[in-house]
């Protein structure tokens, strides 16, 4: 596992001093979980949800009870301007 590549994917900056430690911990973890490869799953489908439910949807209705006011919506943002949330300049 290339920790630098993964960190970029995850939008994280690894503390340089800890890169080595992380690397060895990952290797340790990966070998610990490798046990599952001993089980034969050739004919087994994956399970990503356990509820057995399907087609859970909602009707197309406006739910005003949850709509936040502009001031609520931006209340926790570190920076806002005229009702917008401000972020450093990004290219479009």
């Amino acid at each position, binding site marked *: 596992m290339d920790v630098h590549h993964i960190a970029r994917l995850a939008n994280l900056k690894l503390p340089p001093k800890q890169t080595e430690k992380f690397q060895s911990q990952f290797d340790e973890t990966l070998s610990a979980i490798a046990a599952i490869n001993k089980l034969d799953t050739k004919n087994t489908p994956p399970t990503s*949800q356990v509820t057995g439910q*399907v087609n859970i*949807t909602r009707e197309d209705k406006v739910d005003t009870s949850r709509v*936040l006011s502009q001031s609520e*919506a931006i209340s926790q943002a570190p920076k806002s301007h005229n009702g917008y949330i401000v972020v450093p300049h990004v290219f479009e």
Partner: protein
Amino acid sequence: MTYSPVIGLEVHVELKTLSKMFCGCPADHFGKKPNTQTCPVCLGLPGALPVPNKKAIDWTLLIGLALDCQVNHHSKFDRKHYFYPDLPKGYQISQYDEPLCVNGHLTLSTSEESKATSEVTHSGSSDGENRVRINRVHLEEDTGKLIHAEVDGEKVSLVDFNRSGVPLVEIVTEADIHGSAAAKEFVKKIHQLIRDLGVSDCDMEKGSMRLEANISLSKDGTLPPYKVEVKNLNSFRFLGRAIDYEIARQKELLTRGQTPPQETRGWSEAKNQTFAQRSKEVAQRSKEEAQDYRYFPEPDIPPLVFSKEQIDAIRAKLPELPQMKAARFAKAYGLKPSVVTILTKTQASAAFFEAAVKEGQKVSLPPTVIANAMVNQRQAFKNPEDLVRHLQTQTQEKVSDKITLRQFIDQVITAHTQAVSDFKAQKPQAIGFLIGQIQRLSHGKADGKLVHQLLLERLESSR
């Protein structure tokens, strides 16, 4: 050496549902004050969970069925990960390996396209039918909007999340398009079709329809080793121009022995050309990481399963679309293709015709007569009833009144003996003269065909 354009299109359409895709916020975001239509779900607050909008799913199926797609009996939502300020959760809920609809197609008119792209020829089929295969139709959520501004002397971006979570349908074609004219025709047809379905405004200025083109040139029919993606094309015209520009640009590179780089480009209206653009996913990451979206099944939304009955129920809601209507008109009414094309040009004229046919049935007026009357457009009628009434009076006089016609004929023959002699002397213009005289007597209401027939009978018998 010949180069042929290989073009695939991606069309994004915002559905005009009342509420957003995964929450109950109003979906109509255009022109609203920033961040006034958000809730914990579409603002990506901690702990908020998505619940899909049933109508958005049904409408996506409707679009898919209109494009002759198969509906996947098992479908699901997936998370697509990338970081960008307008994507509040750090992932977009989209569809990966089990989109709602797959394998459709849309037929274009046999195009002049292939001939038009003069020196660039393509190896595509020339069997007359120009079919663009639809790879998939899937449903996802829209992102927020970014505005670039200067605040307190600093260049910043401003984020508005009103658009975040609006249902967005993505239609992806196979690379079956070979020129700008066909591409334009395709998107115009999609535009018309989706508007006919009533599921989106498809307003490109408001961004409720967005176009992307993947363009490359194939050398001698081989698979191109690269692909150029042109994004943010917000009109049919720009799509056409961008394609033409790219074809020329890539051809120049190829003839110089270079392979155009795989990249995302934008369209500059001012310069009338495409330009290399850092796509938003790439902006902060290297190329290697740009395409690794780490899709996995959205654990917050149970899968979707559609029975044949459910799919049929959606299909039953399909209004008749232009292609289907044309086929039915030809078959049911025995009309010529040229007539069908004119009648089905607009929904209004097709509806007028069908209403007139229904009205005409009551008085045994054949559809062909109605169709011809409409195509020839001698007179405009306010409503189908007026047209039928008019045709009815016309045909009644003409058909039922052979006795009157024979009287006119006798009168004319008696009055114009010279013309009768000319006829007998094989002078062809004589018959026209006689018919004209009969029409005068009938005030133009005589059925020309019938008069011609009766006049000939009369002249032959008196020979």
